[in-house]
């Protein structure tokens, strides 16, 4: 079975979807990604869907769920490089991916994540967490 590779860059994970997603591939990706987030303690996830030309409601919901799962595991998710046609389809399907951050390309996505992760509030929370564990 095809598996989507998950690459680690510092404290971020990069998922680049280069093939048309089958339902089972998508489910496997969701599994793999949540495992990798826990293993690596990643703080950010980039999902690059620039090669994705066709989405259906299932894939749309899967992207949304993956983002929600990542957030529960304390990793910000940014979906990058969505094609205009895909965006129109998702909106028409009523899937606006509420709560998922988006960026035009991987570069902008990384910068967005950096900004979010470096925010003073984020650091404040981290020190608070550390104090709790001590």
């Amino acid at each position, binding site marked *: 079975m095809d598996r989507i590779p998950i690459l680690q860059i510092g404290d971020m994970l990069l998922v680049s979807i280069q093939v048309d997603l089958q339902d089972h591939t998508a489910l496997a990706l969701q599994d793999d990604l949540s495992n990798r987030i826990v293993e690596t303690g990643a703080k950010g996830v980039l999902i690059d869907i620039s090669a994705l030309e066709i989405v259906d409601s299932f894939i749309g919901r899967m992207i949304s769920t993956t983002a929600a799962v990542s957030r529960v595991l304390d990793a910000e998710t940014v979906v990058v490089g969505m094609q205009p*046609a895909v965006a*129109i389809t998702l909106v028409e399907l009523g899937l*606006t*991916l509420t709560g998922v951050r988006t960026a035009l*390309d991987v570069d902008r996505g990384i910068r967005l994540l950096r900004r979010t992760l470096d925010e003073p509030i984020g650091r404040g929370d981290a020190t608070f967490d550390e104090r709790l564990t001590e």
Partner: protein
Amino acid sequence: MSSSSASDWTTLLRENQDQLIATWTRLVEASVAGRMTAGELARDIREIYQGLLVGDGTEAGIRSSAYDGLRGLLADLGRTRARQGFSPTETAVSVFALKQAVLELLDERADLSAYRAFGNLSRVIDDLGLYMLETYAGTRETVIAQQAETLLELSTPVVKLWDGIVALPLVGTLDSARTQVVMEALLQALVDTGSEHAIIDITGVAAVDTQVAQHLLKTVQAARLLGAECIVSGIRPQIAQTVVALGIEFGDITTKASLSDAMLLAMRNSGLDVVSRA
């Protein structure tokens, strides 16, 4: 109805060709004065007249093969008139005026027996006139469809205001077909230019109802999925009141009264400041 009575009108037309054509041309000339030259008109009318005689009063009606030539001629005429901007009346009169011409002739002669032939002729002319109008209307519809398409293409300019800021000035009415084109053009421009800020200016939009608002919302949501923020600007006081009265929720979409306000906000958001040199 015997074939002899049906062919009566062809005899009538044959015998009085010159007089009828002269009257007919005079009647049509009055309605299309100045739009066509007398030469063109006389040629058209002479051709129709010959076409009528070719059919030889056949019983099969104007759809029969005997009238193929005449139908082609009338279709051509209908198309030309539609393109030249003639009104339906001006177009129809060029055929129907023949009836008037024949009636004038019969009045002159006070020949009651010929009225029967006139009745048959009248039926044929009505059919021919309707046939020509059908072509005329068909051509008009094609012209309108072409114009609508051209308008659709013209009406979606996406302009770059600054590095990373594009604007989409909307003019006219927003319907589903236009919104689709507008949405695609904007999203494609965002991707092509790598812009993170888009300004949708609705100064030129005549009215905003729930449907237009829905279309705007969809466009903004689609842009967000790409990773770009939209600002809606150019909301006139009247439109603001309508929007509130209709209970339309723009949600968390930033709205500004003028394009310059929106531009300033977009520049601020992309980390730029405008300062005066003085």
